[in-house]
């Protein structure tokens, strides 16, 4: 035999242990580095939440959720007499919800349909092109999306800043997230399940509607919730599309307030600084709840 079995070659197996000298020490060093950076990251998150709680909690009261912001004079008066700033951000809360609902109505059906298309035709050239374009869309800076929607909707459709324009901008940002999460969660369904339905003579559209979508429901919901929490904090595109509104507005062709826009306004007014923190706390809490909700739904994934 001229070719020896490498696993049975005594010489070689005796060599191996020598190269592992100091292995435990290196292991421990590596573990230490990993732990150090994990703790660093986690502490950042807690620092952010802690700062916001500390600076923002005293502004959180019923008025905060039920009243519109004070004007700068009212805020100044309250500050100088040592009171908390009166009023709240109800216009921003309702405006943000309004924007998110309209954006979801646009992005969710479209995103689901495109995601299903990509899943069904994953090997086709055209699907690859759509996938690439989706990735590009995801990479477009949000301010650029704001500019484009300004041109399309603000200038040409609603002739002014509006809920519709803001929602279209947010929908454009949600779309790639929903498309990819739809495709990914459909891919996780075993083919055998699809076959089971087809073998029962089920027409194909019903296989999609009655089997694929219910089975991947948790995955689809997770994707949608993450997309929503992603756009809740968007500020730049909203500045160019809905502008903001100090009052509550339900007209889709008129401007509306939003929490991140209010934070920006408060930042520019030295009398309102306290409201920045409470608004941020609210926004952060809301996004956190959505994230936790999506995690909870995701954990209940069945297949």
């Amino acid at each position, binding site marked *: 035999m001229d070719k020896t079995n490498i696993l049975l070659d005594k010489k070689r197996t005796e060599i191996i242990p020598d190269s592992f000298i100091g292995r435990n020490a290196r292991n421990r060093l590596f573990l230490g580095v990993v732990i150090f950076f994990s703790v660093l990251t986690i502490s950042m998150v807690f620092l952010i939440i802690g700062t916001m709680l500390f600076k923002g909690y005293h502004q959180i009261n019923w008025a905060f959720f039920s009243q519109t912001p004070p004007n700068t004079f009212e805020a100044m008066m309250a500050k100088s007499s040592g009171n908390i700033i009166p009023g709240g951000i109800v216009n921003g809360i309702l405006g943000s919800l309004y924007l998110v609902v309209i954006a979801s109505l646009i992005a969710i059906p479209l995103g689901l349909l495109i995601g299903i298309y990509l899943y069904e035709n994953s090997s086709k050239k055209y699907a690859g092109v759509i996938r690439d374009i989706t990735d590009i869309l995801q990479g477009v800076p949000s301010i650029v999306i704001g500019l484009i929607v300004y041109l399309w909707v603000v200038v040409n459709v609603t002739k002014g800043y509006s809920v519709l324009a803001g929602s279209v901008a947010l929908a454009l940002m949600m779309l790639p997230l929903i498309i990819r999460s739809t495709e990914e969660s459909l891919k996780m369904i*075993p083919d055998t399940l699809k076959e089971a339905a087809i073998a029962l003579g089920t027409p194909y559209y019903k296989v999609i509607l009655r089997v694929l979508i219910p089975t991947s429901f948790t995955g689809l919901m997770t994707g949608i919730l993450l997309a929503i929490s992603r756009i809740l904090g968007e500020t730049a595109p909203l500045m160019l599309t809905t502008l903001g509104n100090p009052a509550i507005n339900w007209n889709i062709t008129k401007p509306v307030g939003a929490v991140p826009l209010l934070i920006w306004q408060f930042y520019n007014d030295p009398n309102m600084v306290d409201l920045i923190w409470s608004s941020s706390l609210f926004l952060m809490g809301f996004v956190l709840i959505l994230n936790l909700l999506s995690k909870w739904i995701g954990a209940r994934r069945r297949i």
Partner: protein
Amino acid sequence: MNTDPSILSIENLSIAYDKDKLAVKNVSATIKKNAITAIMGPSGCGKTTLLRAINRMHELYPNISTEGKIKLYDENIYDMSTIKLRRKVGMVFQRPNPFPTLSIYENVIAGYKLNGINLKRSERDEIVETSLKNVALWEEVKNSLHKKGNFLSGGQQQRLCIARTLAFKPDVILLDEPTSALDPIATAKIEDLLVDLKQNYTIVLVTHNMTQAARISDNSMYMYLGELIEYDETTQIFTNPKHTSTQNYITGRFG
């Protein structure tokens, strides 16, 4: 009842995956009614493709081309609608695949639900009960019919899948290695079940397990490289095979 003992006749069936890669080569055979027909052969011999061709599930693969005919009674299945065909020719797969979002009850009548066929409540109840009794699962699940089926064992899930197929009142049941993912006890239960079921149904079974074919089938096909080498009564095939290739396979020399 049709007294004709054959129910399916496969005539010069050839199936190609790519242009010239034949998975099934010019196969002709008739399958007897109320009998278990086993299809055996080494991996890649085309037995699963042949089985899937009987209810046209093979058409799901891309770039497939099919020549020849399969007649169910006297009707060519390639002229029938797939929906009608798959109601008459049901299929059970290698791995149990109950619908995870449906309850046990809904799983059994899934065929009706998914096809939009509305049944009266009493009819539904009857179909569910009879189907589950036919697969000997009724006693085990009758108190948890409206729970999801994921607490069932693999063997119970596979019997649930067979019940789902039976609920559609098919003439023929195709089984693609139905016990390969199951333990020996569950396998024995399914085998007993198949033997009981052949009184009312025609069963075609793909199996990797030769002893299984020997135990339960009436007729056996031996396929090799897409060709049907030998098709005869199971006792003939196992005791006195005509071809050396069949003999080599059965005696375990390859496969």
